[in-house]
C-alpha cells in the first residue's frame, strides 16, 4: 500500500481548486459551492479505503460530488419546494449594467449556466469545463452516452441563445431573426 493517509490528503488538496470550479458550475457561486466541496471531501475521507490508487482521483471525486449534490437537492426539496436553479451566479451588482457590458459574454454565460437544469450543468461541468469525453462523463454520471449528448446539446442551445440574444442590438433583432 503506497497510498498513505498523507498521500491521499495531499492529492485532495491539489484537486481543491478544480473541485471548487466543478462545484461552482453545479451549485452556483458562493457558500453553497464550498459547502458542496466540503461535503464531498468528508465523504471521500470516510471512504478513502475504496479509492484505488493509480486511478483518476478527479473522476472519483466528481462522482462523489455529483452524488452529494443530488442528496443536497433532495433534502432541500423535502424541506421546501423552492427551486435553487437560478441562484448563485452574481452577474449584476450595484453598477451591474456597466459591469455586464464590460464582461458581456462572461456574464451571459454565467447567467445561462444558472438557468440550466441540474442535469445539464453536470454534463457541462464534466465535458466543457473538465474536458472529459462523452463516454467518460457518462461513466461518472451513471447515464448512457446518448443522454450526455442530448443534455449537452440542450445546454449549448441555452448558451447560444443567452449570448446571441444580447449581442444583437435591439433595432436589428427582427432582421437577424428573419435571416436565421
Amino acid at each position, binding site marked *: 500500500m503506497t497510498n498513505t*493517509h498523507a498521500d491521499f*490528503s495531499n492529492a*485532495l*488538496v491539489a484537486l*481543491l*481548486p*478544480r473541485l*471548487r*470550479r466543478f462545484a*461552482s*458550475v453545479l451549485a452556483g*457561486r458562493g457558500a453553497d459551492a*464550498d459547502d458542496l*466541496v*466540503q461535503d464531498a*471531501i*468528508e465523504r471521500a*475521507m*470516510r471512504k478513502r479505503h475504496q479509492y484505488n490508487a493509480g486511478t483518476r482521483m478527479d473522476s472519483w471525486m466528481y462522482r462523489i460530488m455529483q452524488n452529494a449534490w443530488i442528496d443536497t437537492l433532495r433534502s432541500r426539496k423535502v424541506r421546501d419546494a423552492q427551486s435553487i436553479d437560478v441562484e448563485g451566479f452574481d452577474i449584476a451588482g450595484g453598477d451591474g449594467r456597466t459591469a455586464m457590458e464590460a464582461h458581456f*459574454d*462572461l456574464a451571459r*454565460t*454565467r447567467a445561462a*449556466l444558472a438557468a440550466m437544469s441540474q442535469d445539464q450543468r453536470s454534463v*457541462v461541468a464534466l*465535458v*466543457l*469545463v473538465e*474536458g472529459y*469525453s*462523452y*463516454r467518460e462523463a457518462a461513466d461518472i454520471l451513471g447515464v448512457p452516452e446518448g443522454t450526455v*449528448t*442530448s443534455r*449537452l*446539446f440542450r445546454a*449549448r442551445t441555452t*448558451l*447560444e441563445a443567452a*449570448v446571441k440574444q444580447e449581442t444583437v442590438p435591439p433595432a436589428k433583432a427582427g432582421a437577424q431573426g428573419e435571416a436565421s
Partner: protein
Amino acid sequence: MKMTDEILMAFADNSLPEAERQLVASAVASDPALMARVEGFQRTRQLVQDATASVLNEPVPQRLLDATRQDPFSANPAGPARWGRIFSTGAAMAACVAVGFMLAPRTSHENFVAAPSGLVASGDLAFALSNQPSGETLSGVRLAMTAPSDGGEFCRIFSVQMDNADVNGVACSAGPTWRIVNLDEGVDQDASTAYRTASGAIAPSLLAAMEQRRSGDPLGVDEEAAFLKARKAK
C-alpha cells in the same frame, strides 16, 4: 455519414471514436458551412471555460483545507451528527463494521461487536440493556428510556462511558441480541453531565431516533420492570 449536430458537437468535444473522427475531420475541412458549425460548438465550450476559470485562482477557504486533514474516524465536532445520520438512515454494513472497528479498541469490555447484520451490543452494554432499569448507571452504562417498536421489538436509549467520551445510542431487541440501530458518539464528559443528572436532557438526536423507532409510548417504571423480568424469564 450524415453530419448531424450531435456528430459535429461530439467532434468539437473530442468525443468521437478515431475512425469517425477522421471522417468528420475531412468533411469539415472541405466544407466551410460544417466548419462554421463546429466552430460554434468550440465557441460555447470556450465561453464556459472562460466564465468558470476565475475560481481556479481564488484562495481556497481554510475550512476545505482543514477537511482534507481530518481523520473521519476520530471524535471531532462534525462527527456525532454524521454518525447518527448514517445509522438512522439504515446503515450500510460497511459503516457498522467501521464503527465497530473504531470503538472496539477504546473499551476493555467490548461493548460493541460487528456481526454480519451490523453492530450488536456485547459485554457490559448487552448486560445493562437486558437487566438495568432506566435512570441507573452501572459499570459506566446508563439507560435512559425503553419503548416498544415494530415486530415485537423493544428499543432502549443508552449511554456508555468510553475513555473521556460518552457513546450514546439506541439499541433494539426482540430476542437475546441487542442490535445497535443508532449511535451518537463524541459527547465529552462536561457536556454529558446534564444528560446524567437530568432525565429530561437526553440528546435530541437520540430522542428523534427513538421517535422514529417506537410504535408505542415509552414504558413507565413498572412496565419497564415487568419487561426486564419477562426477558429474564425467557
